[in-house]
């Protein structure tokens, strides 16, 4: 399957969009792609893709971030245009803010993105308000409405932070499956650790980059 130019990562607050985005970007870079990551989060004050500037630099990944990201200012301003990225070489991974509020930022880039992107909806069964497939579907529709884009696939990133184990991921498979049937969208990937990658469908082995300061 060929990957479109823009890979848009959306989902509920705290579903793990940032960690998924970082993993996808590094994975593509490892495969020799030119990769640009865009931190399009206008909602979250901390724990965002812009935190990984050095990691990206070390892996030849370009980073676009809002001018006030990680500053002391609480201004949701985007001082760049995705149009300028349309003709660059390689792939662009866009980490969007949570929920429909965060997805609003995508609206203005709709023209650049439609027909040129895959929009992945990240879900975590263990998050409140999306722990039932029906709730996750409702939120997906809200995100689609706010962004003017249609989701094209589901990433099952069900996890319990540092308490995540194989059982935790296995217990989320039926949830992801039901959401897939309800929405008619394929499961693009199930995020997991290498040890139990053989026990899940469409495994995508991820590392945990989003850490607390005492875990580093």
């Amino acid at each position: 399957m060929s990957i479109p130019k823009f890979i848009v990562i959306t989902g509920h607050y705290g579903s793990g969009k940032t960690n998924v985005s970082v993993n996808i970007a590094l994975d593509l870079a490892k495969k020799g792609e030119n990769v640009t990551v865009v931190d399009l989060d206008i909602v979250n004050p901390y724990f965002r893709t812009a935190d990984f500037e050095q990691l990206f630099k070390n892996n030849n990944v370009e980073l676009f971030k809002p001018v006030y990201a990680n500053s002391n200012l609480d201004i949701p301003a985007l001082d760049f245009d995705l149009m300028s990225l349309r003709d660059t070489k390689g792939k662009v991974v866009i980490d969007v803010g949570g929920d429909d509020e965060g997805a609003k930022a995508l609206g203005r880039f709709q023209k650049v993105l439609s027909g040129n992107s895959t929009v992945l909806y990240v879900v975590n069964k263990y998050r409140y308000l999306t722990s039932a497939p029906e709730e996750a579907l409702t939120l997906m529709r809200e995100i689609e409405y706010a962004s003017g884009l249609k989701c094209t696939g589901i990433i099952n990133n069900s996890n319990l932070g540092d308490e995540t184990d194989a059982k935790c991921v296995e217990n989320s498979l039926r949830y992801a499956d039901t959401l897939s049937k309800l929405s008619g969208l394929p499961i693009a990937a199930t995020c997991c650790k290498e040890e139990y990658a053989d026990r899940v469908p469409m495994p995508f082995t991820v590392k945990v980059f989003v850490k607390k300061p005492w875990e580093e």
Partner: protein
Amino acid sequence: MAEKKLMKGNEALAEAALRAGCKCFFGYPITPQTEISAYLSKRMPKVGGTFLQAESEVAAINMVYGCAGSGIRCMTSSSSPGISLKTEGISYIAGSDLPCVIINVQRGGPGLGGIQPSQADYWQVTHALGHGDFHALVFAPASVQEMVDTVTKAFDMADEFRMPAVILADGLLGQMMEPVAFDDAEIKMSDASNKPWAASGHKNARKHNIINSLYLQPDQLEDKVTARFKRYEKIKAERSEAVSDYCEDADIVVVAYGSTARLAKSAVESARKEGLKVGIIRPVTLWPFPVKQIQAAAENAKKLLVVEMSMGQMVDDVKLAINCSKPVEFYGRTGGVIPKPAEILAKIREMGGKD
């Protein structure tokens, strides 16, 4: 226990409040605590409670004042500059002997400061949360699960002693995600039963209750305040809490609270691996301050080290706790900068005679 959920600290505080029977929430948005409001705006109507976004922080705390007077469990939350605005109302609430819960998810200051985490409101919350002779209960949880457990405790103790209770968090605790479990009990909203003092409607069946902080005669007011301070003495003697680790044989005892205690503990564990005898004590209640626990933890220590995300606001309380019997040093970062475990470790090494 139900299945664990992954929650942001702010969301967990909000959900825990509902489960503690908090029927009314009055708030005004400010980073980094806005998720509390956002969460309750969605959840409150579903469980039969009231969410109200006030026109300002001042309005919100005065709505809490009114609601608390009716005997209903209620809460407000804000971050540092917003708490400063609330202090007048908090003083009135304390002066009227009313229970409520106030959450402060601290950010950098003074002034508008910044939106990154901080612990620079320690002096305010423990020593001067408004004008007049009064205290509030102050809890300083260090994990998302502990925040959940603390909310119930804060409501219970506020009711028991008829005084405001503050949960002092910081941006890091509010924004980070950790797995949490809530017990399965059904959500039951509070009412004024068991609160014979509440202005909840007397229906001509009893004398009317008056909620007030104004006393016309100075000696009347003095009696009120003196009675309140007698209650404070009981709380100080019986209800202070702290958690200590590795203190028994420690030469250096680190004192830190909230998220900083987790950074410091990580540094202490690294120091132990290097053979340095270091322990840590974490005050869980900041008022009442855990004086006895700190004395006990420091008994065999040569030096103490206070670590904070501020310029060192808890240092004097630690010195007083041990009657200045040992040197108390300080390491901290401020303005929204989080101290790294490696920096704290370097300070420990320096104090332990290693560089």
